[in-house]
């Protein structure tokens, strides 16, 4: 008998096809026997794991019980670095920063919280995706360096020493550029039935966000960062092209389809030129503005994962602290703001 192929054996295991004299064949054919054994093991594993997924209970209710194991995400370094450096400007629903969109030619001096749900975030992102092309990346991979001293030398940033067990990394400077495409914008407006006209000069206009080199110092446990501090030099934004920044801002805020609550919050930011809207996903996190030693600090709590603090210092340096122990994170934030 010719050996059935892998697909036939797999279907046979599921009783979806017939194989003539299968047991007899397996008894005399070592390669088929090995293949079927492997298929069984693999499908058993897949079945068990998929059952975890597909037998889930419906609608998980939220409770006020804090019982989840405190830990950091497996994404580890990259996430920790993002948090710690406080690259909030890059935090947009779809990778297009509100910060990019609503800042212009000014250095970031403070953060303003913008709360939004996952649905609002997704909707906002869909719209921003239609505006044009983004070039550049918000965050390059951190590169581990020997010591805090080495990071200080490389970046010029003042960094705390968290002890001999700390890992130190440097993140290269980055630039993101959002270039508008009036054809894309026009087709979106048409789809939405909007009578708005496309502002003159939109095609030649771009928003640029520059983040200088940054550094991160972290303590880890079992490969997970447990306490992280990061610093970046002043974050700068610019509007390049013929459009007046205020006119561009008004046009973007008036785009049809944007969630009303998000627009209202953005429109209410008093000094939008030097404020960075920080999106807070209300489904999973909470945030507030707190005073630490006279410094206005944004605190973000993600239950089950920890607490982060981020602030902009008078010279424009952005500092972020995050830890899975809220008290420890606060103590470090207090220490750094007191300097």
């Amino acid at each position, binding site marked *: 008998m010719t050996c059935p192929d892998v697909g036939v054996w797999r279907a046979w295991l599921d009783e979806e096809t017939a194989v003539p004299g299968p047991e007899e064949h397996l008894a005399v054919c070592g390669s088929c026997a090995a293949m079927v054994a492997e298929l069984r093991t693999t499908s058993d594993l897949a079945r068990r794991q*998929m059952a975890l997924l*597909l037998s889930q209970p419906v609608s998980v209710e939220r409770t006020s019980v804090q019982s989840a194991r405190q830990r950091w995400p497996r*994404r580890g370094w990259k996430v920790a670095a993002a948090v710690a450096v406080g690259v909030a400007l890059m935090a947009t629903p779809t*990778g297009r920063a509100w910060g990019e969109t609503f800042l212009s030619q000014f250095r970031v001096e403070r953060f303003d919280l913008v709360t939004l749900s996952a649905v609002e975030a997704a909707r906002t992102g869909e719209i921003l995706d239609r505006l044009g092309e983004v070039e550049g990346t918000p965050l390059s991979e951190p590169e581990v360096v020997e010591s805090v001293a080495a990071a200080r030398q490389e970046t010029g940033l003042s960094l705390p020493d968290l002890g001999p067990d700390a890992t130190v990394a440097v993140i290269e400077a980055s630039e993101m550029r959002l270039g508008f495409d009036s054809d894309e914008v026009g087709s979106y407006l048409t789809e939405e039935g909007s009578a708005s006209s496309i502002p003159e000069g939109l095609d030649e206009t771009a928003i640029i966000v520059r983040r200088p080199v940054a550094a991160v110092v972290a303590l880890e446990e079992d*490969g997970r960062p447990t306490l992280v501090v990061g610093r970046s030099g002043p974050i700068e934004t610019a509007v390049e092209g013929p459009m007046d920044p205020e006119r561009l801002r008004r046009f973007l805020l008036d785009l049809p389809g944007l969630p009303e609550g998000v627009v209202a919050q953005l429109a209410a930011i008093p000094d939008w030129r030097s404020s960075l809207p920080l999106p807070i996903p209300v489904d999973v996190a909470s945030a507030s503005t707190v005073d630490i030693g006279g410094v206005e600090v944004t605190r973000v709590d*993600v239950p089950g994962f920890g607490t982060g603090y981020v602030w902009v210092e008078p010279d424009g340096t952005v500092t972020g602290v995050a830890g899975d122990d809220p008290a420890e994170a606060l103590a470090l934030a207090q220490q750094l703001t007191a300097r």
Partner: protein
Amino acid sequence: MAQQRRRLERLVAGVLDRSEAEDVVQEALIRLGADPVRHRPYPEVASWLRRVCLNLAFNRRRDLARWRQRAVRGGAPELASRPHQPDEVWMAAENREAVRAILDTLSERHRAVLLLRYSGYSYAEMSASLEMPLSSVGATLARAESAFRNRYEEQPHDLS
């Protein structure tokens, strides 16, 4: 239709949380109302619905992942999908998300095959839903399971 809807929601719940799965199925049903396929025999309609539901779910999952990445960079240490939950609920959710994370690394075809198979669909239904020859289903499933196992074994943790 109610039973069909529950089956679809269960299928999509392999990709998204339940409330989002319900939204996806609702959207697929709305699309069905505007698509000529609604006049076709029931098996064709059912296959069409499964296909559209999976595509919508994969797209939404991708959008959410992108959004979470950006939001994380905005100062939240991590975007857990559930903030406060009792232990057993948390662990169940963690396990589900860990399996979803493995699925995310697979091709859409492999993901779809696994989701359909372990949601209880037959090879004939899988063939129709994925527009692949019936004779290819077994081999595709075997490859998908093998890819899943490889990714699973690369994980540093145990899913249980």
